[in-house]
């Protein structure tokens, strides 16, 4: 199969990770995946207010995902949407398992994810950025989380759909993955696939996550060198 941009079916777009891009934040990162650009900033842990929202035995990891108005062809209206609220929620679920939240009872860790430019895969780029930003903030973690999506076009399992591939695919399956625990922390799917294909696509995603994970670690090492 020939892909629009010449990639192999199991090849993701050029990935670039920069750590520490927001001086005010406790931790931050920018992730570019092809033309998709996400930034993440971590603030906290700080006391969670109002008090009645505090959890007595652990911190709350609060994620807020937003898109810059100019990030897409049709301008995005500012303010939360149903889509952004859901992505914020699944992002928090994707990251929470690897953070030692139990070390910070009654606290909140705020993770802000802003999409600067959107071209498929904004939620996975956001998770990749947020995972690195949490580590950059020095928050104790069991592991990093890597994230990517894949689908099936014709008979082929195809990684990191972009451009017109999104319309051609029979399904779009994003995952987030913690390599050390071999655990999937995010899984969604829209489409139409037999169960066996779902498994194949997830496996393709997992392999890619293991590579992204290496790039994440390298980016953090670069940062710590400075």
């Amino acid at each position: 199969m020939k892909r629009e941009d010449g990639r192999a079916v199991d090849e993701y777009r050029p990935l670039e990770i920069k750590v520490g891009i927001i001086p005010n934040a406790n931790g931050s990162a920018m992730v570019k995946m092809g033309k998709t650009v996400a930034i993440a900033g971590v603030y906290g842990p700080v006391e969670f207010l109002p008090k009645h929202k505090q959890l007595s035995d652990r911190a709350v990891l609060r994620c807020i995902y937003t898109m810059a108005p100019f990030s897409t062809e049709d301008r995005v209206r500012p303010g939360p949407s149903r889509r952004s609220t859901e992505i914020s929620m699944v992002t928090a679920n994707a990251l929470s398992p690897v953070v030692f939240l139990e070390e910070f009872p009654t606290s909140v860790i705020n993770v802000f994810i802003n999409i600067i430019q959107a071209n498929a895969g904004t939620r996975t780029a956001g998770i990749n950025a947020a995972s690195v930003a949490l580590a950059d903030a020095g928050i104790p973690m069991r592991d990093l989380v890597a994230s990517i999506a894949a689908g099936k076009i014709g008979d082929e399992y195809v990684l990191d759909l972009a451009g017109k591939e999104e319309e051609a695919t029979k399904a779009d399956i994003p995952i987030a993955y913690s390599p050390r625990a071999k655990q999937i922390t995010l899984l969604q799917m829209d489409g139409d696939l037999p169960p066996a294909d779902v498994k194949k696509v997830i496996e393709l995603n997992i392999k890619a996550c293991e590579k992204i994970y290496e790039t994440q670690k390298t980016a953090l090492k670069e940062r710590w060198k400075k």
Partner: protein
Amino acid sequence: MNIQKEFILRCVEEGKRADGRGLEDFRKVEIEHNPIENAEGSARVKIGETDVIVGVKLGTGEPFPDKPDDGVLIVTAELSPIASPKFEPGPPREGAIELARVVDRGIRESGSIDTKKLCITPKEKVWCVFVDVQIINHGGNLIDAYSLAALTALMNTKMPEYDGEKIDYSKKTKPFPLKDKPIAVTVCKLGNSLVVDPSLEEEEHIEARLTVTTKENGNVAALQKGGGPLSLEEIEKAIALSVKKGKELRSLL
């Protein structure tokens, strides 16, 4: 709470549920057809103590610019405080939004609605299909209950007559263009086991959940993981279990 949790988990370890069910058993499922006369189609579904009514309303509106000859589907959810002491008044928050979006995707991605047949005048006017839910009692497993009630309500829907200017809701005759029967089944990880149809008490103690919406041909149309992590093996098992239970539920329609 700890005693309740221990009891629930010990039961599951021993291969049964706190209420005596097997791990893969649903509670009693009851379906009432068209309880709402003012809706174009409706259904009341009870799964154990969970009790929901779904109504389908049809209106007209403009199509989306990128889909000029497709009808529009709008699925909403409110967690009405009448149904649980944990639900609060006010605009929908993330729990309600996820519920609506998972049900929406199950219907939309399965291609269950022939949206082309809901076009009145391309680029100008199409049918808008509103799927709304009233939760009467939240006894656990709302996603499956809403999905099943939504599908049943759509199956019960008749199109009202439209003369180009006004909808005549007193005359509902033409069938609604439904093409598939997607069923959502949510598999939960409770301790180290996978179970279906969690009760309200079980839901508080699950590690993770995976909602799998399957089509009549057994294909998966939508997935949504909630809660904590799952291994690939657990996901495989959950999908297989959902396919099986989905068929059982579909046979009730």
